[in-house]
């Protein structure tokens, strides 16, 4: 059946095998392109790596020169009867081959910093993660309650949302200089940039999610005698929790995109410092490795949170997993017994 189904059908899911194949390909296509450009000499390779300088006075062995320059010099050498230079085609230094970047993943962690007192790569990464964490935590501490209030009460919505709508168009990096003037040159202004980048979006996203809660649930709770504060704590908050969790995952991704800008503010630190440092030394494979590391950390955090979410909100799952039953026994009401997760007709 599945093999006969169409590859192209609007809003139809593919078989799990095809999904897997396509997921693999989504990574293979860019990586394959990169490999092709790196390892196939006649694709691009606009430079010549000099192996024999010949009689060209300024060539140095191992140097990269542009192909046109190389050919030009050799023509001059040929016309004057001097010894020709030789070399092989190469890519520019800013495009290292995949295997070099793969090596760098390991090497970057084991190479000690050039100067004493400078952080190792893992220390830089850890510093970046802390900046993200605090920026996101401070933003959420204020943003989540405010978002829920705006989504629940028209008063809060009218009082805050118009200004927030305006403020979210102000680019967070624009506050860099101000943040340094007010908060100094170390971590606080960086955290402030992440905060500004996240907070205003957070209020709007969460208030929207709150508004999406079925009003019939609130009315049902009212007819059951729930008071206003109970409506908020016992209906609105638990009702939006799974969606709120999803929002927070998306917003955390948002916070990551502000990381580099935030770390440029004041004294450069964290992974940004590492990237700039390595590019200064022209060790571009380390630069690529560091950028990819950010992606890997971001994606794996998100996948972990997605996995955790499935078990935190067992009612959103029609099938109960072992882990959620375990969590439910730990934190759920006592003397609950596991039940068969089957749909039963009356």
């Amino acid at each position, binding site marked *: 059946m599945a093999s006969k189904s169409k590859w192209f059908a609007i809003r139809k899911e593919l078989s799990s095998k095809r999904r897997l194949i396509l997921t693999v390909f989504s990574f293979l296509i860019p990586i394959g392109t990169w490999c092709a450009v790196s390892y196939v000499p006649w694709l691009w390779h606009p430079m010549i790596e000099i192996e024999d300088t010949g009689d060209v006075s300024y060539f140095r062995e191992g140097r990269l020169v542009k192909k046109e320059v190389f050919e030009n010099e050799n023509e001059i050498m040929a016309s004057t009867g001097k010894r020709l230079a030789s070399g092989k085609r190469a890519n520019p230094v800013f495009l290292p081959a995949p295997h070099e970047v793969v090596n760098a993943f390991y090497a970057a962690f084991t190479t000690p910093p050039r100067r004493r007192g400078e952080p190792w790569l893992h220390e830089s990464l850890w510093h970046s993660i802390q900046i993200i964490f605090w920026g996101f935590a401070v933003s959420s501490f204020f943003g989540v309650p405010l978002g829920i209030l705006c989504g629940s009460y028209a008063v809060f919505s009218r009082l805050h949302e118009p200004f927030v709508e305006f403020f979210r168009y102000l680019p967070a990096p624009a506050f860099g200089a101000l943040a340094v003037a007010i908060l100094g040159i170390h971590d606080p202004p960086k955290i402030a940039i992440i905060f500004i980048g996240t907070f205003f979006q957070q209020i709007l996203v969460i208030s929207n999610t709150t508004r999406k809660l079925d009003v019939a649930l609130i*009315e*049902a*709770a*009212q*007819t*059951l005698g729930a008071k206003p504060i109970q409506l908020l704590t016992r209906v609105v908050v638990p009702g939006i929790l799974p969606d709120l969790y999803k929002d927070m995952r998306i917003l955390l991704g948002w916070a990551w995109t502000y990381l580099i800008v935030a770390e440029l503010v004041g004294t450069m630190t964290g992974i940004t410092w590492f990237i700039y440092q390595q590019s200064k030394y022209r060790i571009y494979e380390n630069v690529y490795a560091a950028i990819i590391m950010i992606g890997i950390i971001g994606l794996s955090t998100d996948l972990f949170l997605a996995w955790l979410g499935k078990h935190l909100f067992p009612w959103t799952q*029609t099938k109960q997993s072992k882990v959620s039953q375990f969590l439910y026994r730990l934190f759920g009401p006592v003397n*609950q017994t596991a039940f068969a997760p089957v749909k039963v007709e*009356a």
Partner: protein
Amino acid sequence: MNVELPHYTDQTPEVKKRFDELKSRKVILDIQNLNRVFETGDGEVVALKNINFKAYRREFVCVVGPSGCGKSTFIRILAGLDEPTSGQVLVDGNSVSGPGPDRGMVFQRYTLFPWLTVKQNVMFGLEMSNHSKTESESQALQWIDLVGLEKFANAYPDQLSGGMRQRVAIARALANRPRILLMDEPFGALDAQTRCQMQSYLMQIWRNVDITIVFITHDLDESLYLADRVLVLKANPGEVQEIIEVPVPRPRNPDQFVSPEFLATKKHLDTLIHPQDDEEKDDLPIMRMTNVGDEVE
């Protein structure tokens, strides 16, 4: 059908005796001069006009009417989810202002809290009125037993069928021990077979619990099968057209759907809700689009 039908107001002595007894009971719901006017961009729309009605203790009242007659507005005002423009609603002699635990409500849409199990859903109202957790739990389990879902006490609503969800909703509303149970087309989303079953469940519950039921439906059979009296509303503006005493004896059973008094009342209700001048709309101006000789009937 050529059987001579009785008039719908003809009541056998037993039925008449039952209505006399019913009307001697305490008035639980007293609706006085109820009006509801909606302000729209194009002016005012009168949704409900001058409605007066009394329901007696443990009476089963059905409200029917054409679409747009304000049935839903009516029940929402009774629940306290909407406010009348003028007039008032008294429950047990107390004027209604806002929702309260003395009036339980079952909605057409599924309104069980998806994050709570069946048991926790039924406990919700009890916890709101400051019952202790253990007391709420034991009471909730009794109500779950009453609707026959004890096996599913720890299931989440999404794991239940539509009929079971509405049974939980009924248990949840009743657990608060309300004086009145308001039901807004509660079985409207169910398939015919489940609906039939739910009607019989509901009557069993009603028989065993001290509760007055106001039940909104657009299904005339359902209203006659369930109700002591049927409140017929008409549209534009929503006014009381007639209050019909259903002459079908109790206890009711599905065989009575074809009893003469049932059919007579149904016929009368039909003429009230679907007036004759609407009948010409029954035939569609359809062109023939198949070959002659290719007949289906």
